[in-house]
């Protein structure tokens, strides 16, 4: 039994989210994962961008950083290398992460920076009241796409796998136990962990029922080290698989890479040392 309770991670600020928003489940799951891992709140830093889900840090009793739109990953990266002892978590939404901030994911993956990135994907811009996002299905009609959106949606799992992300998972706010278990695994991963949470926006795009119907757990015999198998299942859109698609602990994380490099650095000789060498 954990010595800590999920309520210890509560800040006392009431979430601004609409009743029923999928993000509540993510907040609860993260608190529960922190408690189960017994991480003291002050040793955790949570970085976010802009959007409904990015209000996240205010609702946690940890160090929190609600930054500008699209930059939670470099912000979190700076925090992690600034103090590697911290447990750093980056959070945000699909607009923040895949549109304005989309350029940062491949580089977090290349670095294998030791932090989980939880994207609450509701397939819509919720805070600005329902414009199409990078994961909105094509043809979706809203005020800003009155004739139906013309772009195809991204497949975030395929994208993360293609970038070489060492931990890739999909969870659903409607499956809170599984969600907490996945977040816990992401927190334990010694590298960059990408978690797409299907987190419905009840106000502008309520997909709870839809996801209940089309999601199912990855097959029991699924091998998390088999990249091609992961890609095959990630491509499926009629059925959306939930679970950990990839878990590869063979690559060093960024902080470890820095430590290894430092151990090998030989300072360049100063002028005096060079003169000394030739003096003999």
């Amino acid at each position, binding site marked *: 039994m954990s010595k800590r309770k999920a309520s210890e991670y509560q*800040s006392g600020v009431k979430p601004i989210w609409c009743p029923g928003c999928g993000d509540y489940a993510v907040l609860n799951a993260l608190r529960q994962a922190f408690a189960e891992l017994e991480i003291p709140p002050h040793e955790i830093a949570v970085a976010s961008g802009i959007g409904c889900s990015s209000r996240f840090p205010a609702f946690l009793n940890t160090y929190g950083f609600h930054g500008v739109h699209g930059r939670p990953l*470099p912000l979190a990266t700076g925090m992690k290398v*600034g103090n590697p002892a911290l447990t750093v978590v980056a959070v945000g939404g699909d607009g923040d992460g895949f549109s304005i901030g989309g350029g*940062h994911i491949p580089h977090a993956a290349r670095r294998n920076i030791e932090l989980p990135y939880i994207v609450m994907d509701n397939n819509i811009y919720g805070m600005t009241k329902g414009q199409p996002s990078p994961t909105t299905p094509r043809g979706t009609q809203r005020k800003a796409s009155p004739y139906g959106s013309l772009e195809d949606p991204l497949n975030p799992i395929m994208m993360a796998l293609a970038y070489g992300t060492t931990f890739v998972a999909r969870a659903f706010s409607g499956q809170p136990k599984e969600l907490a278990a996945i977040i816990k695994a992401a927190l334990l991963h010694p590298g960059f962990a990408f978690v797409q949470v299907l987190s419905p926006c009840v106000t502008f795009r309520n997909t709870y029922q839809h996801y209940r119907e089309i999601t199912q757990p990855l097959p029991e015999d699924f091998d998390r080290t088999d990249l091609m198998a992961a890609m095959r299942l990630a491509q499926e859109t009629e059925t959306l698989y939930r679970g950990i698609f990839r878990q590869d602990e063979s690559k060093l994380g960024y902080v470890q890479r820095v430590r290894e490099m*430092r151990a090998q*650095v030989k300072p360049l000789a100063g*002028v005096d040392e060079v003169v000394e060498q030739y003096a003999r």
Partner: protein
Amino acid sequence: MKERAVLTGKHFMSGDDACAEGALAAGCRYFGGYPITPSTEVAERLARRLPEVGGVYMQMEDELGSIASILGAAAAGARSMTATSGPGLSLMQENLGLAVMLELPCVLVDIQRGSPSTGLPTMAGQSDVMQARWGSHGDYSVVAYAPWSPQEIFDLTILAFNVADRFRVPVLILSDEVIGHMVERVVIPPAEQIPHWERKGPRQPPPALDEPPYRSFQADEDDLVPPIAHAGEGYRVHFTGLTHNEIGYPEITPETHDKLVRRLIAKIQRNADQIIRTEGYYLEDAEVVVISYGCTARSARRAVREAREAGIPVGFLRLISLWPFPETQIKDLACTVKEFIVAEMNLGQMRLEVERCVQRPVRGVHHAGGELITPERIRGAIQEAISR
């Protein structure tokens, strides 16, 4: 490691290298940057040197990531820096505003080149002066220093970190390609002689769960600067670019907003004496005063010295800090001076500031960028002003 960080001794060094060494001597242990001419050598030197002293150098994916990462590192307690040029500074503006709003200490080095747009990547300019001051949206204040030699970029980079930490404000080193690529003698003092101003830390232990929350944005009355608690130090801190109260939580009201923004500006004004740096030559009896900064100040000094030798009553005011603008000093000079000349490698950005402060004619010697303004051109302007 300390001795590796401060390369005490006499060196022959470029301005970009001296800037990097100044950062290391000041205790900078994180650099996040993106390659851009003519600032790349700052990054390259730090890429080699930071791992030697236990620091981290990261080449980020773009300038937006660079500045976001240094803000993260600052919140985690590190002295952190980025270096760029005009186009990169444009990309950093949103996060620069965030640094102001969150009062996160950090240093941004801008080795200016000919602008606007891609402009003259390999040639000098001084036209980011107003971008540095007003480039992000909203009312705010920043600090910017303009070195005129490799030695001074070393010294001012240290000052930049000290001012950033002491007053919780982003500080810019607004240098230029001439100084960045010029190689001159740089003397690095012993480590114990490097000035070090501390960040103010919290004065009470972290509150227990049942106690009122820690007020991470409660400013001290004397200097208007709130102490800073870093991630991992035990305090619950909430940073948000939204208008926030003293606890750090969003408080979206006109009253809170007006109070916060006014304090952020007043904080710099209140402490201006410790931030502003200028240097005056022959000012006592000067009828005409030349004002200049950065690389152009080198030409200006020569022009003024030669004019003095010819018996012309001209003085020279070198702006070392551009922001905050040394308004009081220039207003005082205007009591006795008949005319001002502003020499700068842009089309009149600082001339506007001087005009704002003085009821005297202000003559500009300008060039849009790419080549140094010669002493002869400034000499000519002095001649015209005197014989007017």
